C-alpha cells in the first residue's frame, strides 16, 4: 500500500471517524470518572465560604454557540448558590443571546427550588449595553444601571436590590464568558474595585485565563466541559441533593459529565490521528512540501 496515500488521508474519512466517535457515547454513555482540579475547586470553596444571604453576580456573557459548554456550568453554579441560600443577581453584557441564555437557565433551575422568591433571593436584571462602562457603573449603583429587571419590573422596590447596592455588597462575580468579556471583569471589576472574579469559559478560551488566575486577578477558572463536569463532580461528592439531581436521566442528558464522554473519545481520536500522521511522516522519509 502506498504510504503517501495514508499521509494525505482524505479529510472526509477523518470527519467520519470523528462523527462516529462522537455519536457512540451519546447513544451509550460511558460514565468516565472526573477528577476536580484546583482552578475549579477555587470557585466551589469560595461559594462554600459564603453565608446564607451573601450575594453574588452571575453574568451570562455567552451566546448559543457556547451553550453546550457553558449551560452545564451555569446549572451547577446556580444550584450550588440556591442550595446555600446565596442571593444571586443575574445579568448579561453579551449582546448575541446572553440574556436568552440567562432567562432559560434561571427559569429552569429556579423552578427546582420551591422556597425561592423572585426579587428577594434572586433577580434577573437582563442585558445592559456598554460592556465595560456598565461594569464600572455597577460600582456606584446597581439600581441605576438596571432601573428595571428583564421583565420590566421596577427594581427600586425589590428587597434584593435594597440589600445589594453595589460591588461593596457583592462577594464574588462569576462571568460565564465567551470571547474577551471575562477579561473585562478581571481588568476592571477585580483590579479597580477588588471584587473576587471567577470565570467559566469555553475550552478554547481557557488558556488565556490561566494568566489571570496565576496573578490572583481571578479566584477560579472553569474551562469548557471539563470545568463544568468537575464542578458537577464536586457537588456530587459533597451533597446528597446533587447526587440525586445528577442521577436523573433527563438531567444527565444536559450534564457536562455526559458530554465529557464525547470529548474524551474525540480527543483520543485526534491524538491517534496525530500519532498516525507522524508515523506516516517519518515512514515516508519526511515528505516535504505539504
Amino acid at each position: 500500500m502506498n504510504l503517501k496515500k495514508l499521509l494525505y488521508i482524505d479529510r472526509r474519512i477523518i470527519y467520519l471517524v470523528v462523527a462516529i466517535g462522537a455519536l457512540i457515547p451519546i447513544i451509550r454513555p460511558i460514565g468516565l470518572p472526573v477528577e476536580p482540579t484546583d482552578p475549579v475547586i477555587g470557585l466551589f470553596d469560595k461559594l462554600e465560604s459564603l453565608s446564607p444571604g451573601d450575594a453574588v453576580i452571575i453574568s451570562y456573557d455567552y451566546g448559543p454557540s457556547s451553550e453546550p459548554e457553558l449551560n452545564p456550568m451555569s446549572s451547577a453554579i446556580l444550584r450550588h448558590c440556591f442550595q446555600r441560600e446565596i442571593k444571586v443577581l443575574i445579568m448579561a453584557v453579551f449582546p448575541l443571546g446572553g440574556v436568552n441564555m440567562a432567562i432559560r437557565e434561571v427559569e429552569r433551575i429556579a423552578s427546582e427550588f420551591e422556597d425561592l422568591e423572585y426579587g428577594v433571593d434572586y433577580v434577573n436584571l437582563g442585558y445592559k449595553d456598554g460592556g465595560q462602562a456598565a461594569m464600572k457603573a455597577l460600582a456606584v449603583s446597581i439600581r441605576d444601571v438596571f432601573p428595571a429587571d428583564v421583565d420590566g419590573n421596577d427594581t427600586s422596590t425589590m428587597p434584593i436590590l435594597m440589600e445589594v447596592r453595589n460591588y461593596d455588597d457583592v462577594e464574588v462575580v462569576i462571568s460565564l464568558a465567551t470571547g474577551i468579556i471575562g477579561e473585562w471583569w478581571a481588568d476592571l471589576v477585580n483590579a479597580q474595585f477588588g471584587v473576587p472574579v471567577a470565570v467559566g469559559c469555553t475550552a478554547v478560551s481557557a488558556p488565556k485565563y490561566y494568566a489571570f488566575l496565576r496573578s490572583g486577578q481571578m479566584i477560579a477558572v472553569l474551562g469548557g466541559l471539563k470545568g463544568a463536569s468537575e464542578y458537577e463532580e464536586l457537588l456530587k461528592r459533597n451533597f446528597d441533593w446533587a447526587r440525586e439531581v445528577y442521577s436523573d436521566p433527563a438531567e444527565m442528558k444536559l450534564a457536562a459529565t455526559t458530554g465529557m464522554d464525547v470529548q474524551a473519545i474525540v480527543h483520543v481520536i485526534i491524538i491517534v490521528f496525530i500519532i498516525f500522521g507522524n508515523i506516516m511522516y517519518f515512514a515516508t522519509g519526511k515528505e516535504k512540501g505539504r
Partner: protein
Amino acid sequence: MRRTIPLVLTFMVGMYPIFAFFVPHASISGVNQWLDRALMIVAAFALPLGVVNLVGMNLSKIKQKRAGWPYAIVLLAGLVVMTYFGVIGVITRQHAGFHPTFQMLFDNMVSPLQATMFSLLAFYVASAAYRAFRARNVEATILLVAAIIVMLGRIPFGDMLTGGRMTPLSEWIMNRPNAAAQRGIIIGAALGAASMSIRVILGIERTYLGKSRD
C-alpha cells in the same frame, strides 16, 4: 472646525476619566459617573450604525449580483424578520420583551445554527491536527508533545493510562509555560491599546474621524 470640535471632545472625555481615577473626590467622580452612563447610551447607538452599514453593503451586493448574493437576501430577510418581532416584543412587553415568534426563531434557528457552527470545529480541528502537527523540528516537536499532554490531561483516559499523572502535568503546562506566554501576549496587547488610546486622546491618531475634506 469640523475636525477641531471632535478632537477637543475626544481629548476631554478621554482625559477626564484618567484624571478622575487619580482624584477620587466626589465633585470629580460625579461627572465621571455621568460620562460612564453616557458611554452606555453611545455604545447602544453603535448597533444601529452597524445595521445601516450591514444593510448598505448587502443591498449593493444584491444589486451588483456579486458572488454569494443569494445569501445576502437570506441575511437581510433574517434581519428584517427578527427586528420586526423584536420591536413588537419590546413594545408589547411580552415575556421579558421577547415576542413568542422571536423566541421561537431564536430557539429553533439562531441557537442550533450557532451551535452547529461551533460544533464543526471538532471536525476541522481533527483534520487540521492530522495534517499540521508534524514533528518537523525541535519547536514543532515540543508543541506536539505539549498538545498531546494537554489533550490527554483534559480527559479521564489520560489519568487512567498514567496512574493519575497526566492531569497534574497538564495543569503544570497550563499554569507555567502557557500562563507565562499568555501574560506576555496580554501585557503586549494592553500596552498597544494604551499607546493607541493616548494617540487618539492627544489627536495624533485621527483615522477614526474619516477622510479629511478640509
